[in-house]
């Protein structure tokens, strides 16, 4: 006794479905990157790609490895804790080059440099030393009295 009469209909459907599933599986294997899902629902290699960006700021340690004299000058001054590149700018090109002497950074412009931090502003914290350049030190250059690496007037 034939249980399913026209079973070739079912077989045809099943073959179609299997084919579609096969195509899906193959396409998915081809299209989804191998590293997708290493850590989660994203490309694992993306982390290394983001991390591979070259640095622009060398970091304080790189500066201090060579410029020990400046470290000594800054010792116990109010500016001791400030990283070098806060004033001197990004210097990885200088610090990481084979010939740092040839890649010397420009000297910061003292006329504007001090005021970046020390210009008077009501929104600054009360205890922070702030000046109005017009009525402080006769409007002369800051460096006459304050050496940037050791700003205390001696």
């Amino acid at each position: 006794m034939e249980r399913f009469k026209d079973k070739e209909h079912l077989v045809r459907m099943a073959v179609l479905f299997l084919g579609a599933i096969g195509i899906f599986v193959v396409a998915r294997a081809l299209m989804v990157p191998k590293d997708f899902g290493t850590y989660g629902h994203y490309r694992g290699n993306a982390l290394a790609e983001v991390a591979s960006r070259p640095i622009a700021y060398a970091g304080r340690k790189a500066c201090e490895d060579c410029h020990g004299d400046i470290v000594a000058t800054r010792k116990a001054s109010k500016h001791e804790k400030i990283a070098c590149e806060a004033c001197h700018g990004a210097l990885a090109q200088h610090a990481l080059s084979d010939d740092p002497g040839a890649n010397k950074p420009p000297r910061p412009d003292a006329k504007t440099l001090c005021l970046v931090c020390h210009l008077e502003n009501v929104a600054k914290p009360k205890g922070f030393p702030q000046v109005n350049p017009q009525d402080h030190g006769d409007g002369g250059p800051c460096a006459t009295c304050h050496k940037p690496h050791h700003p205390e007037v001696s």
Partner: protein
Amino acid sequence: MNDDRREFLKSTGIYIMLTGAASLAWDHLLAGEPEKAPNYKMMNHWWAMAIDIEKCIGCGNCVRACKTENGVPLEPFFFRTWVERYHIPEGDMEHPEVDSPNGGYDGFPEKYSPGDGSKNFFVPKMCNQCSHSPCTQVCPVGATFETPDGAVLVDSKYCLGCRYCVQACPYGCRFINPKTHTADKCTLCYHRITKGLTTACCEACPTGARKLADLKDPKDPIHEFLRTHKVQVLKPQMATGSKTYYNGLDGSVR
């Protein structure tokens, strides 16, 4: 009775197998893939940021350093970090006046006069590196994600530029990069912190108002900072799991 025993054995077997599978998966996760940066073990870090508003002088060093370090377009409106100035007229906490001229890139020209009874302060803003970040949850293609070491990153090769995440971030920390047309944001200087350096903004901050922190490092000063300061995250009601801790955060800050 027999049936019960059979059921019991069956379910126990299933549980044992599942636990085994889970522990295998967990081991794999803990082992991680060999990281590309030598000596950097992703599982030993959980990055965060501490910002001390009482120390911020609004100099804009962080904004400039960030743009230099990360090649962020110089036009206004493209910022991975920026500084806001809050001006709160006497007693009117509900209506703070907030401005951020060019994100603080050029500093803050004096706008308010002292002694008018107002409260004024600076608030540095950046990606809060949320551990339950809304921005990663809405990404339809898995192009943005929280890394196992706690940074929220964008895979610019996978990003479609659909802007869902830009709208989802409650802190306004994302933008579409005009060059790549993909989502862009603070990476917590992932290329620096994986090499043992601090972020560019922390490096450039002259007052130590910003401090990169590793919550998994028991020697990190963050633990003492969190213990000894009254800290708050931005928009705690959003339950974003923000890892940017503000000291001295005023209730008027949005």
